[in-house]
């Protein structure tokens, strides 16, 4: 640490060059922060703590095929099952298809199963008491400026009312919160009563979209899933049951291999970056050969010269990189506030920061090592003589 000013003045020796290089590093890590938060958002969709003690039962044909309501009671009898909720995808549109958010009709006990959704007791009671009641996540309410007590009109894309009309209106009676930051995207949902939905819709009555099954012991998940699927085996309503995590991961993987795309882009970016900063460091050391020789003359060891140059290159990358990641965090915050669930992006959290900083240090070391070795090996006499 006592040599910090030495490293710093080496960096500031050619201010323009250092600032330009840092700007390149900044751009690279801005991109890293943004892309990694998108990747994390996709990866997290399949990895939640609550997702291990919950199963999802859908039709084996495809999750868009409906299942009979009568299955609920039979699933509830499977040993190890503690609660069975169900829901139907509604797919309603608020004002414009661009305002997409998930909305579905849910069973009365839905909040006993999806326990991470926290609703104040009075609002939960109001929801139970209001036939046309709906609850929304805090994030969604903020996005559209909704207040408890107002009516929310949705246009059906799948389910018309009995009279053929697509216009459904719900009374907003509650706003739920999700505390776990990884599950924050669940706040972008609107939920309403399945019973009301089933009474009012034109067709498909008595059928539900999927079952959410809460189990007592996650270790038993496989056994219970098999037992649930056995209920409907060889019927014309065969089911497929898996943990919520596995179900989400399977769904997300249908979009594309986001991880692969992000990795490919970042490989191109970092390859370029290493070349670029490596060139800067090589230049910086080449120019300073006589200075390094002077340092050695006054008693700096080979090792300290090596470390000085390495510290310089790591510091160069760290400053640019941290600034880039800070900028990325700002941008992600802005994007989230603006589009909500329409675009999956996770906060730049400690995992992204950790991998980012690790990358900065590695890149700093990689680009510094050749110039540093050159500085370490130089012969004082030759260097001072300018040979």
């Amino acid at each position: 640490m006592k040599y910090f000013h030495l490293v710093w003045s080496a960096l500031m020796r050619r201010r323009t060059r250092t600032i330009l290089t840092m700007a390149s590093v900044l751009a690279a890590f801005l991109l890293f922060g943004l892309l990694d938060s998108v990747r994390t958002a996709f990866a997290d969709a399949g990895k939640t703590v609550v997702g291990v003690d919950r199963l999802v039962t859908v039709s084996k044909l495809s999750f868009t095929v409906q299942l009979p309501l009568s299955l609920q009671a039979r699933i509830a009898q499977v040993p190890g099952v503690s609660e069975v909720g169900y829901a139907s995808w509604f797919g309603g549109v608020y004002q414009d298809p661009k305002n997409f958010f998930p909305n579905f009709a849910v069973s009365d006990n839905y909040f006993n199963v999806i326990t991470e959704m926290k609703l104040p007791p009075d609002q939960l009671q109001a929801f139970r008491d209001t036939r046309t009641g709906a609850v929304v996540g805090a994030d969604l309410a903020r996005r559209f400026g909704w207040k408890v007590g107002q009516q929310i009109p949705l246009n059906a894309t799948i389910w018309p009312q009995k009279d053929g009309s697509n216009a459904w209106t719900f009374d907003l009676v509650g706003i739920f919160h999700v505390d776990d930051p990884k599950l924050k995207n669940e706040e972008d949902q609107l939920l309403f009563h399945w019973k009301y939905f089933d009474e009012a819709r034109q067709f498909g009555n008595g059928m539900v979209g999927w079952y959410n099954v809460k189990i007592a012991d996650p270790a038993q998940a496989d056994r219970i899933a098999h037992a649930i699927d056995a209920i409907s085996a060889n019927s014309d309503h065969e089911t497929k049951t898996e943990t919520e995590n596995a179900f989400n991961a399977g769904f997300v993987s249908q979009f594309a291999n986001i991880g692969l795309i992000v990795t490919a882009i970042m490989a191109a970016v970092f390859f370029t970056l290493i070349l670029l900063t490596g060139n800067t460091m090589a230049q910086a050391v080449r120019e300073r050969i006589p200075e390094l020789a002077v340092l050695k003359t006054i008693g700096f060891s080979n090792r300290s010269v090596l470390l000085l140059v390495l510290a310089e290159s790591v510091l160069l990358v760290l400053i640019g990189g941290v600034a880039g990641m800070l900028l990325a965090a700002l941008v992600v915050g802005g994007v989230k506030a603006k589009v909500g669930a329409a675009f999956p992006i996770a906060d730049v959290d400690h995992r992204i920061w950790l991998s980012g900083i690790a990358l900065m240090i590695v890149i700093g070391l990689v680009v510094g090592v050749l110039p540093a070795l050159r500085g370490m090996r130089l012969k004082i006499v030759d260097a001072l003589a300018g040979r």
Partner: protein
Amino acid sequence: MKRFLRGLLLVVILVVALVIWSLLPWYGALIAAVALALWLALTRRGRQTLSVTGVGIATLPSRWGASSVIVIGIAGVVGVLVALLAMAEGFQATLKGTGNDDTVLVTRAGSLAESNSVLSHDSAVLVQQKPGVARDAQGRPIASPELVVIASLPKKSNGQDANVSLRGVGPEAWEVRPNVKIIAGRRFTPGLRELDVGKGAMQQFAGIGLGSTLKLNNQVWTVVGEFDSGDAFDSELWGDKDTIASTYRRGSSATSVTVKLTSPRAFDQYKAALKADPALTVDVQTTRAYFAAQSEGLSKLIRILGTTIGVIMAIGALFGALNSMYAAVATRAREIATLRALGFRGTPVVTSVMLETMLLALAGGVLGALIAWLIFDRYTVSTLGSNFSQVVFQFRITPALLWEGIKWALAIGFVGGLFPAMRAARLPVTAALREL
């Protein structure tokens, strides 16, 4: 103050130049290149520039590290940009190439996507009886009521189950879509549990090769043919409508009716007739409009993402180029000062530094575009489309995209060369000559 104003002016000129450049079509750039070549070859200043540039280029190998930073940095930008835009282009081309103006799609009002829609048997028949519908030699309407449902099949790439559209059709389906051709095997037989598989679906999904069987709701279906349509239907499985309806318990309903009109001009008349009928609550649009709308969201998203990533990478590469060229100007300071002392004016010096940077940028752009083209052209992927099922498409690297990439490269080279060039021109001759 004067320096600040000059800097400001430079930035304004730069922004204007970049805007013009981004709007310039390829022949505009060609004219500019020809004009530059003429100037270089024919005028005194031009020949001076040429010889100064020659010296710069001759010394490139001695600073290959710095030069390769420009080339590879820009190659990275162009490669990533072209690849991402090719993805958007391919997705859009697949969906936009589907459908035409005289075939229309009738769905339940408000349903947005085919798989959301439900039409009763009566409605499906009624929409075929309206004026404007083309009829065959026997006087029957050319229209195909279809049932689109979703099946779950494992993808070849990761073994994970993914959704695939299963389209239940009648014999009319082949008639309203003459571009769908069987390329292997045969058409399914109505009434049997047989399937024809689109070429794209066959590539992406496991276990649906010709002759293989798959189980849907405990019933065994056999793949008897492969078809190629060159558009979005390539991602689908086709089977007999009534048989699929019984497997999926959909009764006699349809999800949509594809109707052939007598001509594209009949659309307004047909639409008015459907709207006027109180027994129908349907939406109608040309198949071209329907599929174009399906591609809009995703291809726009990919384009925005691609351009954003491209801009950020370009900024990174730009600073790299600036760095290298400032260093190049600094190492050549004495040489440039000598030229100035000999009577060379500022223009040849400025132009030669810019030419050198833009040549390096061009090399980078071509390299990046070439790499993207080699790796990604015709690269087949699939993603979730708006029917909640997979749409198979190919990356499409068009000449327009390659040109777009080269334009970006030259723009980065232009900006990266301009500021160092200005510095070179402003070097105080005496000071630079004395410098060791």
